[in-house]
């Protein structure tokens, strides 16, 4: 009988021992992935206002002080800032803290210098804003800290309050229990806990909060086992990262590292002594000592901790009393930056899934560095909110019914700067930017015209197209008679105008002449990798694509024919900062630059005098912009794709239930695009034509050479050798031109 008991006991202890070691040896806390926005790079000449810079610093929780001297501090004097950047390990290397002075003038950084020696600094990079995390299913969160990174005051306070004999006992401390009992009786309240830190760690790791004798026994046993196998410092470090310190919505907060951010918006090493005391005081019961709900109770507890520290000579009395007089300092932001941009994070996750399993994404503590530009994203969300509301008001549309999708990218690299998946930026629902496949209407047309312009000896921007009634009968007997938006037929029109004015009939006819398969092949080169049905109506956009796909198409055009796959991630580091993967810039020469240049020229005309001209009702006329409107049948989809030298934006507005909104591309999506790009400020000028382009004056009515003598003459680019050779009837001074050319040739 005794033997049986013994065997059972041995077995049981062995089981506990196994459990303890398995848990700790292989223990990798499930670490959520951290997603960072692009870091702000400061240099003289950067277009940025002082207020925008202040906004970036606020998002990074830089603390305004009188004179910045520690990392994470900043001071502002009008348009001049002084700050100490936090050190950070970026994918390309570690940046140490920098003490710098930044001045602003005329909407740009005017001066960047070292604050210590005044010498100019060519480039300074801030730590990137944390814009989200990917959590494992059980929603735990950690900001891991090594023991060396934890302020000594916190360790001292913790041991003083929770387990004074920590370094001396062997896991459980009968003395400690006794001591606590005496102290508590003396104080008339619970001043000390009887459980050791080791026991608390075991409780956090394994056991529920059920307080039964069995639990207590198990806890004690496991604590003993833990102490047998592991060093004191290891146990302490685990404790510091494991201890439960409250809830943030549905997420439980474990560890001082995260608690420091959650309650005080700063890293552990930037806490003041009263803040340290507050956190340590919470250990006893984070729900009971919840600073949001029971501030007075928490204040008393904090002050108690400060007193105990003073008693134990860990803290000077003067400092303690200063600490006790301070307000709690708890930030009232309930929502931390842990999922502020769900639509963009969705894109990030999808791109990650190509290389990582879901389990790794949510539990290996990956550090993901993205292309998101928070300033662009904030501006986007603001513009969306205001413009949708304004459109609903002015067009008598049911409030709250309009939906939207927007993608903003850089032109040359295809980096996604901002993303809107719907009108509510905080809502992680259907991601329209990625998943809403809607008929694209006229935004497809540049692909048709590009196909034509890639045959410069057949088609140029001056080629006369036929915008007269067209009847097409398919092989199955279906009849198609496309009409123009304005219900008018325009007769003979130059190619660039047909695109700029988005004439359906001329385009449909052109599509038939070229053949739809060549157009599909062009679309493929532009980056549309979807299967498309070779129907003539494709030329008018009877195809369903997502806003992201449309963006890829326009990126290829805007970059001068060099397709870069749109990307949201730059690099991924492991939780220990070692590089795992980089996603470098890639380009494919998909379209010849001179052909892209021709299409871009027509799209510039589109916004100057064509269907996109509403842009310049608001934007300054000298801004260099190209774009294309798109409107589908019955005004169900409103599209605008527009770009400047460096930035591309595609906007879709419509109803989820596919009912008409009454908005055309111009009256709807364009207005939102305009708001957004207006906030970006004046763009760089687009590049001049390359060497394989020649520019000629053309008479649009005939498509022939003109000069200033022709009314409505327009300058158009042509691929070298493809410009018209015949002169229009309206031109004069023709003889003069020819003799001048002959004369010039003599000297070449």
């Amino acid at each position, binding site marked *: 009988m005794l033997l049986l008991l013994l065997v059972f006991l041995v077995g049981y*202890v062995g089981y506990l021992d196994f459990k303890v070691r398995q848990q700790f040896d292989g223990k990798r806390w499930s670490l959520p992935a951290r997603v960072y926005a692009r870091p702000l790079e400061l240099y003289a000449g950067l277009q940025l206002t002082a207020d925008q810079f202040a906004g970036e610093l606020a998002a990074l929780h830089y603390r305004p002080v009188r004179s910045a001297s520690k990392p994470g501090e900043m001071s502002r004097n009008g348009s001049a800032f002084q700050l100490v950047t936090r050190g950070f390990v970026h994918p390309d290397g570690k940046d140490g803290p920098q003490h710098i002075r930044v001045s602003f003038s005329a909407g740009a950084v005017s001066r960047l210098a070292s604050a210590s020696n005044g010498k100019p600094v060519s480039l300074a990079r801030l730590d990137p804003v944390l814009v989200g995390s990917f959590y494992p299913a059980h929603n735990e969160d950690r900001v891991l800290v090594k023991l060396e990174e934890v302020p000594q005051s916190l360790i001292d306070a913790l041991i003083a309050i929770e387990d004074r004999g920590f370094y001396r006992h062997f896991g459980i401390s009968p003395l400690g229990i006794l001591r606590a009992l005496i102290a508590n009786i003396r104080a008339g309240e619970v001043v000390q806990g009887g459980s050791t830190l080791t026991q608390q760690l075991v409780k956090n790791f394994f056991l529920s909060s059920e307080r039964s004798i069995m639990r207590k026994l198990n806890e004690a046993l496991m604590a003993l086992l833990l102490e047998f196998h592991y060093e004191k410092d290891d146990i302490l470090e685990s404790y510091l990262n494991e201890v439960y310190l409250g809830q943030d919505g549905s997420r439980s907060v474990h560890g001082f590292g995260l608690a420091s951010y959650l309650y005080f918006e700063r890293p552990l090493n930037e806490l003041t002594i009263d803040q340290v005391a507050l956190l340590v005081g919470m250990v006893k019961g984070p729900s009971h000592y919840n600073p949001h709900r029971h501030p007075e109770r928490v204040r008393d507890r904090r002050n108690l901790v400060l007193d105990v520290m003073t008693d134990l000579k860990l803290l000077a009395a003067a400092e303690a009393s200063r600490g006790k007089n301070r307000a709690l300092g708890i930030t009232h932001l309930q929502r931390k930056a842990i999922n502020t941009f769900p639509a963009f994070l969705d894109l990030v996750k999808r791109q990650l899934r190509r290389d990582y399993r879901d389990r790794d994404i949510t539990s290996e503590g990956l550090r993901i560095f993205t292309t998101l530009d928070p300033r662009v994203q904030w501006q986007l969300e603001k513009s969306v909110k205001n413009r949708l509301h304004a459109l609903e008001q002015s067009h008598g549309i049911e409030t709250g019914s309009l939906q939207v999708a927007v993608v903003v990218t850089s032109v040359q690299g295809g980096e996604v700067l901002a993303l809107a998946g719907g009108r509510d930026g905080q809502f992680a629902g259907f991601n329209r930017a990625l998943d809403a496949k809607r008929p694209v209407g006229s935004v497809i047309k540049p692909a048709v015209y590009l196909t034509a312009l890639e045959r410069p000896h057949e088609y140029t921007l001056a080629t006369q197209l036929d915008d007269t009634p067209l009847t097409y009968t398919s092989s199955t007997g279906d009849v198609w008679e496309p009409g123009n938006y304005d219900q008018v037929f325009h007769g003979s029109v130059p190619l660039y105008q047909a695109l700029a004015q988005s004439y359906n009939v001329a385009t449909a006819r052109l599509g038939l002449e070229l053949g739809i398969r060549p157009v599909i092949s062009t679309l493929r080169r532009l980056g549309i990798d979807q299967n498309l049905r070779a129907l003539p109506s494709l030329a008018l956009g009877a195809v369903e694509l997502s806003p992201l796909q449309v963006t890829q198409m326009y990126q290829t055009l805007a970059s001068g024919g060099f397709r870069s796959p749109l990307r949201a991630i730059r690099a991924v580091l492991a939780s220990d900062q070692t590089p795992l993967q980089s996603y470098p810039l890639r380009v494919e020469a998909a379209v010849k630059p001179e052909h892209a240049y021709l299409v871009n020229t027509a799209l510039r005309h589109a916004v100057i005098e064509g269907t996109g001209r509403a842009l310049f009702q608001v934007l300054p006329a000298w801004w260099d912009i190209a774009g294309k409107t798109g409107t589908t049948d019955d005004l169900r989809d409103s599209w605008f794709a527009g770009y400047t030298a460096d930035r591309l934006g595609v906007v879709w507005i419509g109803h989820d239930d596919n009912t008409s909104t009454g908005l055309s591309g111009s009256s709807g999506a364009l207005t939102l695009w305009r708001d957004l790009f207006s906030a970006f400020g004046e763009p760089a000028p687009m590049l001049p034509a390359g060497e394989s382009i020649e520019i000629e004056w053309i008479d649009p009515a005939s498509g022939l050479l003109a000069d200033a003598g022709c009314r409505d003459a327009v300058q158009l680019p042509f691929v070298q050798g493809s410009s018209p050779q015949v002169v229009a009837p309206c031109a004069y001074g023709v003889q003069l031109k020819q003799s001048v050319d002959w004369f010039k040739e003599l000297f070449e």
Partner: protein
Amino acid sequence: MSNSVIVQGLSCVVLVVLLAGCSGVSTRLPSPVVDHGTAAPPDTRIEYDRSAAEAVLESAPESVPAQQPPVIVALLEQAETQANDGDLSTSVATLERALRIEPRDPLLWYHLASVRLAQGEYSQAEQIAMKSNSLAAGARKLQVRNWRLIAQARKRLGDTAGAGQAERRARSLEN
């Protein structure tokens, strides 16, 4: 049960615990692997194609946008140092940083193409050099360098005809 039995039982338990302790080596708890101390090590997975690099990684061609802003000069220097140290993927990252600031500087694209060539990314090297050329109107010497680079890349890809074409383009630009 009698006291002695309880004592015996307890001492057995203690013994077992001690034994259990001895059965496993006393190990350190795996500490949280947070290491802020070291910079990212060079990416040793990418093969450094020395011969291609030597053919192309030379000093900057002369005919280049006259005044490059100091930030670009600083980043270019950094990128070249990193490339010369064999840290090619970091060099790429630095050049991309520069390209975000000056997206249409053909010299930056040329340098990116060079490093990609050195990494053995021949197809990308070719495409990026073409991109550089598309931005290099009037910068004849840079265009020559790009065509030479394209020729190198095509040769490595086994496209001898294409490499020849690129060589001829380079020569015709040199006059």
